[in-house]
């Protein structure tokens, strides 16, 4: 199988989708001729034409609304929001419309829209190119929320998302587009080529929405995380020698409570981790549900390792990002308590 980075695997997913289904259309700011500011759609307009892959005006609300209308007509739009920081002008069309049309029409209309958007920090993007707004969308009944952490999952999940009859907000951890990240900013960039999940089939396959994966088995504690931090967690476990079991959620809504609970019943110690601000971040939902589900198995408080309750700073981004050091401290805290 060919090695792909996450941008290539996303590109391959869209290639497969465009190839197989004439109802799939892809649009967003700069996604057409240019192929997107990160290159996720590179070459697709040339291959499939101006009416399948095209530029959209800079109006995230219009982009989502256009996708809703097209989906109601039977198309399968995959819309890109250039940075997830810029999804907020379009959030009303997601919260009030996309998530509810099937429900409020009693299943007369469905809007199978995928909104792809790069999220997370670690690229010196400052406060307007670094947000992780996933928690907002997990509070919206009617949408699914997906965040892959490897090229293989990114392709399989994007195909599954596009083939799903229900809307998906698809976050792409841009820090790991080009290689996994161990949470040490100064370490040399790793490549996906050496990662087992950097091997990606050319053709069609899906990864199930709603299923988490145990990416590292362990006995000492359970780490529940997603996206970039999956790799930081793995590196932290290796570096610290702490025998952590690491769960890559992949889907946040609906999240895979079974896999989480089974692990926590085994370890009794939990770290939930994300880059987004702490207060009302998705870690809160995980901690709340885990303590309810596994109360009598818990030996120490569930530890929330998160970004701070501030905007994402530019110069001090590494003081904000939950890097390897903070991760190791978190693992120690829950295992040594």
């Amino acid at each position, binding site marked *: 199988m060919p090695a792909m980075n996450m941008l290539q695997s996303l590109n391959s997913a869209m290639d497969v989708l465009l190839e197989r289904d004439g109802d799939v*259309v892809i649009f967003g700011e700069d996604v057409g001729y240019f192929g997107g500011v990160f290159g996720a759609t590179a070459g697709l307009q040339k291959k499939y034409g101006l*009416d399948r892959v095209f530029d959209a*005006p800079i*109006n995230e*609300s*219009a982009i989502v*609304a*256009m*996708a*809703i*209308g*097209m*989906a*109601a*007509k*039977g*198309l399968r739009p995959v819309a890109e929001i250039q940075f997830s920081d810029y999804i907020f*002008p379009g959030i*009303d*069309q997601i919260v*009030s*419309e996309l998530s509810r*049309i*099937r*429900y*409020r*029409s*009693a*299943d*007369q*209309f469905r809007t199978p829209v995928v909104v792809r958007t790069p999220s997370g920090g670690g690229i010196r993007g400052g406060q307007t190119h670094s947000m992780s707004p996933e928690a907002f969308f997990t509070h919206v*009944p*009617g949408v*699914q929320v997906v965040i892959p952490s490897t090229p293989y999952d990114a392709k399989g999940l994007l195909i599954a998302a596009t083939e*799903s*009859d*229900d809307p998906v907000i698809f976050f792409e951890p841009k820090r790991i587009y080009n290689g996994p990240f161990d949470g040490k900013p100064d370490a040399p960039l790793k490549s996906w080529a050496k990662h087992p999940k950097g091997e990606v089939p050319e053709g069609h396959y899906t990864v199930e929405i*709603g299923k988490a994966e145990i990416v590292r088995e362990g006995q000492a504690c359970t780490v529940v995380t997603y996206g970039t931090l999956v790799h930081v967690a793995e590196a932290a476990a290796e570096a610290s020698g702490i025998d952590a079991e690491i769960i890559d959620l992949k889907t946040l809504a*609906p999240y895979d*409570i*079974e896999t989480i609970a089974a692990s926590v019943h085994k370890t009794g110690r939990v770290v939930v981790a994300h880059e987004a601000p702490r207060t009302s971040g998705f870690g809160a939902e995980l901690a709340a549900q885990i303590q309810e589900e596994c109360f009598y198995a818990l030996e120490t408080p569930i530890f929330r390792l998160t970004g701070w309750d501030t905007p994402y700073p530019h110069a001090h981004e590494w003081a904000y990002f939950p890097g390897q050091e903070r991760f190791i401290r978190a693992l120690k805290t829950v295992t040594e308590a």
Partner: protein
Amino acid sequence: MAQDAAGQGAQSRFHVPAPPARPGEAPDFSAYSFQKAGEAKRPDPLIDGARTSDLAHGLVGVLDHNHQAVGEWDPRLSPEVLREGLSHMVLTRIYDDRMLKLQRQGKMSFYMKSAGEEAVSVAAAMALNKTDMVFPSYRQQGILIARGRNIVDMMCHCISNSRDNLKGRQLPVHYTWKEGGFFSVSGNLGTQFPQAVGYAMGCAYKGEDSIAASWIGDGTTAEVDFHSALVLASTYRAPVILNVVNNQWAISMFSGISRGEASNFAMRGLGYGIASIRVDANDFLAVYAATRWAAERARKGGGPTFFEMVTYRKDAHSTSDDPGKYRPKEEGAQWPLGDPIDRLKNHLIGLGEWDEDRHAALEREMTAYVTKAYKEAESHGTLHDGPLSPTETIFEDLYDKPDWRLIRQRRDLGV
């Protein structure tokens, strides 16, 4: 307007617009100027949008003060079609009045009438093809009636009973009827406007010749989605008809709060290079002809049309407000463009195709029809006394299959 500001002392000052008349004052329409019926030219439907400035600043009207059809826009409809339109409008008004009474009796939680605006929806619905998808606001119930939806079903929705096709999930008048090409009405103003453009783009993408049409109010033109819709329609030359129903009021706010210094709403479309036309929307023939023109334009690849449908909201905004609190009571009665039903009725009478007796008979017939329909609707329950759709339906239709959260929550509720 700048001048008087200058007159006020040539110094910038805080300015908030106010309507010409408030309760207790005499209605004042001096700010309005309407082009005479028959005067507006009817260009080829494939005209360059930028060249519609006269139509945006004028007023497309067909019925003159003698109720005669005049000018290039006369659609030359047969008496049968005119009588059909009249009867749809009469039914819409009687239906609304009845629903309002029932709301007052506690049979439903809420209601919104379209009194005075019946031509906007009925004429448009008749001018469009049944396969054209409409994205209405909550005040286009006339479209459902004109497209022949069973009013028993409409009532079952309004009283949220066991036969409500929306399972009691939506407020009354927030209809959905896919079979009839009627998209889900949202309670959030304006959101359907850009969605209609996306749908129309989908029609073009699939190479079909069906189109989409949407309606929002004058107040809603201020909303962000208004701009989104016009940008999309212009950029992708979408086969869509975008209607602004200017009924002069947005709950208690007069149209000047959203229109600002502009002299009308139709102008707004010109800035996007979209064909923009102001229509006397209390004139059934004008709405019909204009909609036909726009539909032809859209189907032939001419792209979008933007309409300001000029009308007046005769009654309250909804069952939640009293218009006497914010506008002169007599304003509606004195509205210069009259009433759409009276005007079409008088036109037909002028043609010798209608008379007062037949009209009275029509009203009696429709009243009986509505009364009978309501009896049937109520036999399926009411919001107040039930039966409603089964409680467990609140957990359905979110996803293909409910996930563990919904399954547990339904169990927690014990249904």
